[in-house]
């Protein structure tokens, strides 16, 4: 966390860093990813102490598994941090695949039938998806190698190098390759219709891991997608990739809206809400105007924060109620006042109520949609957002304010489970009112990096 902040300040000064002979490369976009990963990672490690401690007390996990959990947790953070800092797209792919492998280990921590099924599906679907992405990466590499003198050297796959050569790429090849990349990284980023692994994996993982999966892993995959979006924008102009992003985003929103409406399981509902928000980010990117991209990047951060809050609170809630079913969980505010309040705030924030941060980025997205004259897309987004608002809100109110089904001991689950949530709630409030100055500069710089492709063509 502290190192993340340190790096951040140096990026603000220099705009980009390149170390190890260009093997690693950092710019504002990666800085935003790093700050999100370290923030959510730090807070979820705080939360893990309480959560996993309780699982240990309840004999769900033994000591050996606890050790394995913390090892896996740190490996997972490491691989995710490797994604935004690698300049070489091959290494980026390896890091993303490594995140899959490590998180599969974390999901199958509980030896229940459900978690075995979830991890198997996750492993297969994500790996097949990523192999499609690798196919696309090879095509891009080929397109680059035709024009590059440093053929077959280590720099042939560098992102900076590809951006430089991008205008000369064969347009058909780039289109072909980008579709593979989109399907591949889209699978990992949870864009519908390739999202099927996501609800299973997120609902079966331990709650702190769900927060990491949903809050930052999806962002990491989307980051990979963005890097190629930039290259293809440089090469064939942004229209092609923008259109695909909007289409996929809207499908995700639609599927998420339908699934949230009929959902019976809290964590699955939250997982589908992740699909929805990845859809929002993708649509917002696809609008291709400065405001929209700004909103999308802001939304990545906001979603990470709010979704981790929701997963933490629902983790505590399901530990208390011993169920994940929405129908059986009611009256949280009466049995566990503080956690219930946090869950309420998180829920209101995620459906886009005004005083909170998500409202701001969603508002930016919609206004950019109308200003770029994507009326059909914006209209559909509003429709789906309203459906999600209504159905998520209904589940939320039932869970928070309903009458408890049976008598239960009152009280929250210890200070260490509350503290991370309080930190997150304060972040939500602050981000809802204003975006701090340094962060604002970062997001603006990052949006410019993404937008430049559009300005050139």
């Amino acid at each position, binding site marked *: 966390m502290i190192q993340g902040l340190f790096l951040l300040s140096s990026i603000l000064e220099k705009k980009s860093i390149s170390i190890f002979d260009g093997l690693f490369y950092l710019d504002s976009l990666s800085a935003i990813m790093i700050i999100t990963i370290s923030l959510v990672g730090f807070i979820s490690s705080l939360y893990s102490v309480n959560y996993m401690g309780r699982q240990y007390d309840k004999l769900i996990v033994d000591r050996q598994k606890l050790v394995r959990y913390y090892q896996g947790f740190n490996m997972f953070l490491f691989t995710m941090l490797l994604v935004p800092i690698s300049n070489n797209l091959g290494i980026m792919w390896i890091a993303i695949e490594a995140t899959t492998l490590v998180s599969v280990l974390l999901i*199958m921590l509980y030896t229940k039938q459900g978690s075995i099924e979830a991890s198997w599906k996750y492993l297969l679907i994500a790996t097949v998806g990523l192999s499609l992405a690798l196919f696309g990466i*090879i095509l891009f590499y080929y397109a680059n190698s035709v024009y590059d003198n440093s053929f077959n050297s280590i720099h*042939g796959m560098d992102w900076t190098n590809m951006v430089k050569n991008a205008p000369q790429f064969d347009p058909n090849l780039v289109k072909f390759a980008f579709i593979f990349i989109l399907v591949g990284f889209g699978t990992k980023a949870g864009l519908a219709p390739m999202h099927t692994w996501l609800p299973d994996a997120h609902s079966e993982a331990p709650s702190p891991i769900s927060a990491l999966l949903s809050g930052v892993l999806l962002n990491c995959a989307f980051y990979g997608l963005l890097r190629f979006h930039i290259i293809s924008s440089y090469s064939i102009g942004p229209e092609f990739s923008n259109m695909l992003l909007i289409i996929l985003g809207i499908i995700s929103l639609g599927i998420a809206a339908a699934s949230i409406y009929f959902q019976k399981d809290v964590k*699955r509902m939250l997982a589908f809400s992740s699909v929805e928000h990845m859809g929002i980010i993708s649509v917002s990117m696809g609008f291709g105007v400065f405001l929209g991209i700004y909103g999308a990047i802001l939304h990545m951060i906001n979603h990470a924060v709010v979704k981790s809050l929701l997963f933490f609170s629902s983790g505590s809630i399901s530990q208390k109620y011993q169920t994940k079913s929405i129908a059986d969980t009611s009256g949280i505010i009466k049995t566990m006042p503080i956690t219930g309040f946090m869950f309420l705030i998180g829920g209101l924030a995620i459906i886009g109520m005004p005083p909170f941060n998500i409202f701001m980025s969603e508002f930016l997205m919609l206004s950019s949609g109308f200003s770029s004259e994507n009326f059909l897309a914006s209209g559909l987004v509003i429709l789906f957002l309203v459906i999600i608002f209504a159905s998520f809100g209904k589940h939320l109110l039932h869970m928070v304010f309903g009458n408890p089904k049976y008598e239960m001991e009152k009280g929250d689950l210890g200070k260490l489970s509350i503290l991370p949530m309080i930190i997150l709630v304060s972040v939500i409030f602050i981000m809802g009112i204003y975006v701090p100055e340094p962060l604002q500069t970062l997001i603006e710089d990052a949006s410019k990096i993404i937008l430049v492709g559009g300005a050139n063509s």
Partner: protein
Amino acid sequence: MSDLILPTQIDLLHVSAVILLIATFGIVVRRGFSDWLHAYRYQTIILAGVVTLIAFVTSIWELYIVSALTLGIKAIIIPKVLFYVTKKLDSPIKLEMNPYVSLRISVIASALLVAMSYFMALQLPISSDKTISVFLPVSFSLFFIGLFIIISRRKALNQIVGLLTIENGLFLFAVVVTHGFSLIIEIGLMADILVGVIISSILLFRMSHTFDSVDIKNLESLRDD
């Protein structure tokens, strides 16, 4: 460099491409767990041979190392791990009894996929020399047949073999089209694959322990009704 290719070398290319395809079909037509692993091993050994051949033709020394790595990790270690897993599995029947798509239809489907790959390879705007025109369709075929194996089979082990076949196809594609990634990336890829195989073996053990079989029909309880 293409003018250096002698007619005998071209024959070698053709022959190795054909053997590669036959080995891939071996995975499609056999029922037994260990048959797939044998077929996969042959496939990988030939793949390593092809890489050596390309290294010889293009005289890129890194490709020799890559081919040695392929032979070491993918042809020796990975099949060893998976053979060990098959031996230790609890379930007594180590056969693919009734896949979602019957074996006969699978063979026909795979043949169609191969034809499709040849068609696709013609469509791609990739400059063509002798090695590319021989191996590009083969690498596509491996890729598609791997995908087909994953969706049409019921045994988890077969799905792993399908994944590995996809990976082999990609590897061949990369080597043929771009003469391989740089060495550090190849090593990273191999490490990813190795770790992936080990993790999926652990999962296989858990699966056979919990469900008494590695049939993926057990894995259909998580859904939204």
